[in-house]
């Protein structure tokens, strides 16, 4: 997805997800997922890349399907009951539909958004979306501070042990550590603000070292995302398999 503006990717992800979030049938989800896999292959995005960016989802999707399989509202032939568990035609269908849907929404979104460079996104948010520079750059600097705070947390925990305070895992101890971390974070934040000010931040009009703009390519990406969603839902409607979220029973 190099060469595509990160902001366009975010917009595309939202426009694509909305129609697919409103339906639960297997046809629209399956169609969407199928189209994406073809598109990804055509764009030269390898299966290895896809797995690398989406693996947590690949694990989560079957699990969400499994809970549907065991606990969904029974309907049609009942195949198995045991305590709260009921496996019926309806639950099998829902389980498949949910698994495919989680993949259909998650896989393309993650492939597009994982690996977005926060710096480029900040450029786009400030220059195209016109969010205030103070907000955007503050958030970007905070990305860097997150790593620093992880190290601070380790130090603070070690320091509490050194002071003889970590023997009981009491809520009070956890709270004290959290508070110490908060204080440290505020001090880091203040220092960061000072460093930013020392480099003339906030003194008025500023330029951006890198231009962020939208191109035809970005329009194509957004249109394609929306197109895939509409095509998939259209196919489900045409075949009479469309099922809106919350509507009970099969079509």
């Amino acid at each position: 997805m190099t060469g595509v503006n990160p902001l366009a990717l975010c917009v595309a992800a939202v426009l694509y997800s909305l129609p697919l979030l409103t339906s639960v049938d297997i046809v629209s989800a399956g169609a969407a997922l199928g189209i994406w896999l073809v598109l990804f292959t055509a764009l030269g995005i390898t299966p290895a890349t896809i797995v690398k960016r989406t693996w947590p989802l690949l694990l989560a999707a079957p699990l969400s399907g499994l809970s549907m399989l065991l606990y969904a509202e029974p309907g049609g032939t009942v195949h198995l009951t045991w305590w709260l568990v009921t496996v019926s035609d309806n639950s099998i269908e829902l389980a498949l539909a949910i698994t495919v849907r989680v993949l259909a929404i998650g896989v393309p979104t993650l492939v597009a958004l994982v690996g977005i460079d926060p710096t480029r996104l900040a450029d786009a948010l400030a220059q195209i979306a016109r969010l205030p520079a103070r907000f955007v750059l503050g958030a970007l600097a905070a990305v860097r501070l997150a790593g620093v705070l992880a190290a601070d947390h380790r130090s603070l925990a070690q320091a509490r042990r050194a002071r003889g305070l970590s023997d009981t895992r009491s809520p009070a101890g956890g709270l004290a550590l959290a508070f110490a971390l908060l204080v440290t974070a505020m001090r880091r934040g203040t220092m960061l603000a000072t460093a930013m000010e020392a480099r003339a931040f906030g003194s008025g009009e500023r330029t951006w070292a890198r231009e962020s703009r939208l191109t035809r390519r970005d329009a194509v990406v957004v249109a394609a995302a929306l197109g895939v969603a509409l095509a998939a839902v259209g196919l489900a409607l045409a075949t009479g398999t469309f099922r809106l979220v919350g509507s009970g029973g099969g079509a």
Partner: protein
Amino acid sequence: MSAPGTSRPARIVASGWGWRHASRRHPAVAGLDLVIEPGERVLLLGPSGAGKSTLLAGLAGILGDTEDGVETGALTLDGVPAAHQRGRAGLVLQDPEANTILPVLGDDVAFGCENLAVPRDEIWRRVTRSLDAVGLRHPLDRPTAHLSGGERQRLAIAGVLAMSPGLLLLDEPTANLDHDGAAEVRRAVAQTSTTLVVVDHRVDEWLGLVDRVVVLEPAGGLIADGPPDAVFARAGSALEAAGVWVPGSRPHVPRTPPLPRPSSPDQPPPRSPVGPGPLSPASPSPADPPLLTAAGVAVGHGGSAVREDLDLEVRAGESLVVTGPNGVGKTTFAFALAGLTAPLAGEVRASAQLARGTRSPHPHRWRARQLLTRIGTVFQRPEHQFVTRSVREELAVGPRLVRAREQSALVDELLERLRLTHLAQAHPYTLSGGEQRRLSVATVLATAPRVLVLDEPTFGQDRTTWTELAGLVAAHVDAGGAAVSVTHDEDYVRVLGDRRFHLEAAPLESQSAAQEVRV
């Protein structure tokens, strides 16, 4: 260096200038009269609390407005109030972490230019030139998190130079760096042609680079001002008394070998917390087993080892120093010895005597409370180890946990010994750097641990605090305790390096990868 962009060196004039922070009763700086000519390079000295950092912040124009404090007199750059000319002066702070702003190297340098609304093409020309000037030759998209401390400080200088300031302000820019990193930074500074004001406790290293020394007086005004030779010849001893490091004059810390005593079989009972008290532990003999033994220890950050196969013995009556460049795992190794973290491989074993009363010979398995009387750790950043709201409470924490006798008398004695009595009710965070350092050491000594582990105890300290601190460690060791200090400070090594454990950059895979990133 041909400064990126073109900018004349600035002229500084302070006339009766002073600043009082809104939250303080006394001014940080008062009645300062000083002229610094364009292109002059000034080393700014003074005891802690003399207002050096405040003056730098004032020159950088970041002290804030009337809500933040009260200004008196005038402080101008080229005749215009310093507060009104952001970008004319560039400031680099002591903590490399605090100087880095953005996640990517090139952007971090460009940041200041953007804020000054420099046109895009010009920004990237300046970025390249500034990075050249400080000798950083990484690709522009290198993540700043991958840079060493020395590289970060040079990055900060590049970020400032890219703004083409007329004045470069450096606030202890090398205090957190190892020897090589500090030399890198000074080489970068030597290339600049702006007016320069640098604050640094370690005077020797800057002498070749500056042509004037100005010493601030805490009450306001100047103790001394002139060419370095003249200033140190004339006011050397007065400066020393004021806590300033004077070149060529090494601090003296007496070391006394312990008196022979009959050996006591048990954990030492509570003893005088500072110095060799009447209840000092047994005097050590070489035949005693080491208090701590590290065998085949591997340490690292996260799960990956940066050093492996470290063997070391920590003996009573001996002060051990651990030296080596930034990032070789000195601190993690020391923390493994201190029982604060488990070694990634190998083991740290305490002597039977030291481990008596605990459930394991391995310090990292002890309860936190059991560490207090056995191994005490002084952290590099004192504020990390403060857990209460006043100096007095802070000192009372340890003694209460180990149920020491006469806790309040013990605390009083510590306050007195470490000159903290007048601050007993102060919040630890509000103390000066030197006071925080004294307090952090005092909290550890309060439970009289047998072994002291100190991480960079002297960094950024003035001569007075330095001498006190080294004296405390010496007294602890000479009374039969043991000390392990991670340090870059050669003076400290000279006084307290009974034995030196030097960690070189290791030929491990992860290490060579780290080296590779720095090419």
